[in-house]
Structures are given as structure tokens and as C-alpha cells.
């Protein structure tokens, strides 16, 4: 029973990642694409957890934290680029 539920959850997460890829390709503005990429990163965390249940090993659970941190840093960098046009400001040369 648990096997079937976990396979079903993997199917749902894959369908939702495909829908988000549709939004990444089609999205009218850049902010739409960044939102969809952030949600793809979050879904990837879920798929990693489910895969580690399917393979019955806890070797992949460190990757969850890593993917979460990378998705957050990428989203923050994209937001700063959209708002100011640069990511790293150089205003200290005085």
C-alpha cells in the first residue's frame, strides 16, 4: 500500500514539474519564469525525499538541504537583478 502511495506521489510531483516547465517556457514576464524556477527547485526537494524512500537509503537526505539553499540563493540573486540591474554592487571605491 505504501509503495503505491509513494509511486502515486512521485507521479503527482512529476506532473507538477511539467506544468511548471510550461510556465517557464511560456511566461509573459521574467518574474513568472523566476517564480516557476523557484517552484521547480522546491518540487525537486520533494522528489529527492520520495526517491530516498523508494531506494530505502538515507544517503540522499543531505542533498535536500543543499537544493533548498541553492534555490533560495538563486531566487534572491534573480530578484536583485530584476530590481536593480546588477547583482553585486560596487559603490565602495571612494
Amino acid at each position: 500500500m505504501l509503495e503505491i502511495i509513494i509511486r502515486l506521489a512521485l507521479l503527482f510531483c512529476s506532473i507538477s514539474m511539467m506544468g511548471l516547465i510550461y510556465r517557464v517556457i511560456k511566461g509573459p514576464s521574467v518574474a513568472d519564469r523566476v517564480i516557476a524556477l523557484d517552484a521547480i527547485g522546491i518540487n525537486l526537494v520533494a522528489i529527492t525525499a520520495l526517491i530516498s524512500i523508494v531506494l530505502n537509503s538515507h544517503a540522499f537526505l543531505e542533498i535536500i538541504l543543499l537544493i533548498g539553499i541553492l534555490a533560495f540563493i538563486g531566487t534572491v540573486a534573480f530578484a536583485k537583478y530584476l530590481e536593480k540591474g546588477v547583482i553585486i554592487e560596487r559603490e565602495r571605491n571612494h
Partner: protein
Amino acid sequence: MSEIINILIGFFILAGAVLCLIATFGVIRLPDVYTRNHAASKAATLGVMFILLGTFIYFYALEGHFNSRLILGIVFLFMTSPVSGHLINRAAYYSGVKLWDKTVRDDLKEYNKKMMGKSSAN
């Protein structure tokens, strides 16, 4: 005992996956950047937190392995995902993405106009 834990794990994982699917329907169907961000940053976060909680219960109850990285991951996602959603919304507003044409209220526009008028008067 084991059967109850199986039911609990199944409920958490299935609820999380269905919430992820609903968040994706929101991202596809909603009309506006801001409403899409509302769907993506709240519902998807709750779904992933449910799935991680189910995974934690699985490894703790059936394998006897207390994994602290999963709890760290849950707390980290709970803290950072609304922050990144807010940052993207703010960047979208200031880079000039239009609101939906049926939007009835835009408080930030009036506030910005007032602040601009005050700074030019000074």
C-alpha cells in the same frame, strides 16, 4: 502500531503531493504574476513540508534512524520560501509588471505617489 504509522506516512505524503499538484494548477491558471506567486510560494511550500514530514516519520519509525537534516530542511524551507516569494513580488512590482486589469486596489502605488510628492516638495 506499524499499521497506524503506515497510514500516517501515507496521509502525509499523499497530502503533500496533492498540494504540489494544486500549486501547479494555480501557477498555470491564475491570471497575474502576483497571484501566481501567491500560489507557488504558499501551497508548494506546505506540500513539500508535508512530504518531508512523512519522510522523517518513515525513517524514524520504520528504520529507527533519526535524521536531523530533514528537520533542518523543513525549518529552512518554512523560513526562506515566503521570503523569496516576497522578494520576487517586490522586484516584479518595481520592474513594472502590470497588475491584472480586474485588480481593484493598489495601495503601494498611492503610497509611492505620496512619497514622491513629499520628496519633491522638500
